[in-house]
């Protein structure tokens, strides 16, 4: 019997029509997540063709990118600042109602970042195919799902047929062994992986994260890892489901219940790469040797261990441009550089464990004078959980701005932005030029490093405050 990878098993189970040299595969989509930014043009296509959403029961909508995070705007009568954003939110409400799609609207307790709420509901399950008009859909691969981002035209394809036309990607084993040292988190691990593989090293591939380090990670941590697969160019990243996965999903509202649960777990146990299954590419990472990581440039691959200097690279235009944009110099130490803004949140690091990590550093401490610390939970549920656990109180006492959920300052669509020239240590996923605001300078790091840097007002190794 041929040995198959996890990816191949999920792919084959969803092939409605296999690919041929002339035509891509018709791939069935189990769960279609949508949000306000990439769906309106797809709904317009349905309207123009007079088509319904074919499987509304497999479609779940929320609003996260353009939504405000200030409580008075979410729950009060203060309007959304940007007219176009307000219109986009309204358009999703209209489209969801017209097409019978379930929507977690502005004031719904289940609302949040699309990649945070679906796992919390138990809607994300092992072995599924999951797509969304959003590149960080790779997050859901943490459950052993094949999950990837698509464009708006493809959102329309899924609406109309519940399928996509896809060429089969290649496979890439990311083998991680060893115990992560104290103060070194899943975020540091994925930044190190991107640094090693490069920002296009995964293009055309699906990652499978494997090895003892990955097995030892919680679901929140696995989601952080899979989330940033796209930053290495891979459309998807997967982790084989195991007891950690099943424990997380058990009794979640949309997970299988009762007798269905046992049957599902039995099925999910088969979702592992067979011994001897061949991957098209592989990389090995020694987790025990890692340090907290931080980016110095304008893509997530421009990353160094926090105690290391900025590398000295000759004859690379993008490196020169990046240092110019960041106002850094080759050979500079990262530790001690001044910080203006700290953002803790996003689909990468806006889950409860991320907030708990930040609280460990912030408890009994204050944000440095002149530094703005914005903490945005990944969902309203996480907000409630963090408040019940006393984390919000720790944040507010420290001087942080504690908000309603959303994508917020990860990409600044809702007005939560970093000013030109300012330095922001951010737990988000992209440090592209202008990502957090025109002229904003982003340094990606873990929630521990972000919180420590907020306290000191400078880039700080979190192990000094633990």
């Amino acid at each position, binding site marked *: 019997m041929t040995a198959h990878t996890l990816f191949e098993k999920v792919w084959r189970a969803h092939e409605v029509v296999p690919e041929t040299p*002339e035509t891509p595969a018709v791939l069935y989509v189990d769960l279609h997540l949508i949000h306000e930014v990439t769906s309106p043009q797809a709904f317009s296509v349905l309207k123009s063709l007079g088509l319904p959403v074919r499987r509304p029961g497999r479609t779940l909508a929320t609003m996260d990118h353009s939504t405000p995070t200030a409580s008075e705007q979410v729950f009060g009568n203060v309007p959304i600042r940007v007219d176009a954003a307000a219109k986009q939110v309204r358009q999703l409400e209209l489209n969801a109602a017209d097409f019978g799609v379930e929507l977690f609207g502005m004031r719904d307790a289940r609302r949040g970042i699309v990649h945070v709420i679906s796992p919390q509901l138990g809607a994300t399950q092992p072995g599924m195919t999951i797509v969304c008009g959003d590149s960080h859909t790779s997050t859901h691969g943490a459950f052993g799902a094949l999950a990837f981002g698509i*464009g708006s035209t493809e959102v329309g394809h899924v609406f109309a*047929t519940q399928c996509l036309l896809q060429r089969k990607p290649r496979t890439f084993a990311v083998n991680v062994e060893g115990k992560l040292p104290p103060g070194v988190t899943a975020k540091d691990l994925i930044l190190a992986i991107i640094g090693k593989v490069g920002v296009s090293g995964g293009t055309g591939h699906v990652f499978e994260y494997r090895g003892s380090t990955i097995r030892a990670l919680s679901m929140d941590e696995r989601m952080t890892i899979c989330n940033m697969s796209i930053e290495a160019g891979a459309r998807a990243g997967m982790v084989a489901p195991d007891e950690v996965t099943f424990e997380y999903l058990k009794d979640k509202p949309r997970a299988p219940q009762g007798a269905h649960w046992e049957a599902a777990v039995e099925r999910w146990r088969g979702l592992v790469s067979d011994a001897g299954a061949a991957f098209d590419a592989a990389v090995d990472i020694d987790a025990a040797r890692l340090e907290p990581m931080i980016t110095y440039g304008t893509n997530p691959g421009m990353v160094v261990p926090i105690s290391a200097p900025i590398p000295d690279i000759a004859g690379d235009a993008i490196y020169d441009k990046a240092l110019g944009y960041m106002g850094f110099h080759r050979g500079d130490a990262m530790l001690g550089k001044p910080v203006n803004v700290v953002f803790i949140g996003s689909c990468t690091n806006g889950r409860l464990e991320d907030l708990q990590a930040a609280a460990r550093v912030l408890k009994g401490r204050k944000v440095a004078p002149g530094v703005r610390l914005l903490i945005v939970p990944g969902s309203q549920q996480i907000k409630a959980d963090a408040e019940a656990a006393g984390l919000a109180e720790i944040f507010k006492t420290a001087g942080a701005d504690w908000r309603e959920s959303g994508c917020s300052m990860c990409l600044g*669509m809702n007005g939560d932005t970093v000013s030109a020239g300012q330095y922001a240590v951010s737990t988000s996923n992209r440090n592209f030029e202008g990502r957090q605001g025109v002229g904003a300078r982003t340094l990606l790091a873990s929630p521990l490093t972000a919180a420590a840097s907020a306290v000191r007002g400078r880039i700080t190794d979190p192990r000094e405050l633990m």
Partner: protein
Amino acid sequence: MEPLKRVHSRTVVLPLSNVDTDQIIPARFLTTTTKEGLGRQLFADWRYRADGTPNPDFVLNRADARGCQVLVAGRNFGCGSSREHAPWALVDYGIRAVISTEIADIFRSNALKNGLLPITVDDATAAWLLDHPGAEVDIDLGAARLTLPTGTAVDVPIEAFARHCLMNGLDELGFLRSKLPDIERYEAARGA
């Protein structure tokens, strides 16, 4: 969609690698609910100065860039977000082909659905193109061939089905909908 068989144009060269979709069109312009008119915001933060006037140093603002339909860029063009606004903005501006040694997966897929050719070439061809801004190139989709003004012709891989759709002006959704009987059988077999 109009059939697209050939692009013949001078090139405009953006000699940077890892040009991400946030540069192609910054997130603050994504609050639109349509796909029209995004060309004005193409490369907005590089193309315009803080006061909104054109930045004369940016390649697209140079006089000889006018009318160029082929953009040559460094490796890994279009990385980052899945926003289809990126190819919408490029096409609305007038670009019909992007040439690089490597093009990010989601951008490539989105481009092909909007009449924008994502062309990957070998290092030597890319180096020549980067060194010769304004070169008049010919992309023949039927032959899957890029011809340089030197007469050198190189094969350019374009996914067969997308090429068929582009050349015949077909919408991929039509093909996908023709598979609905297969999709229904699949669902019935799974008990979905």
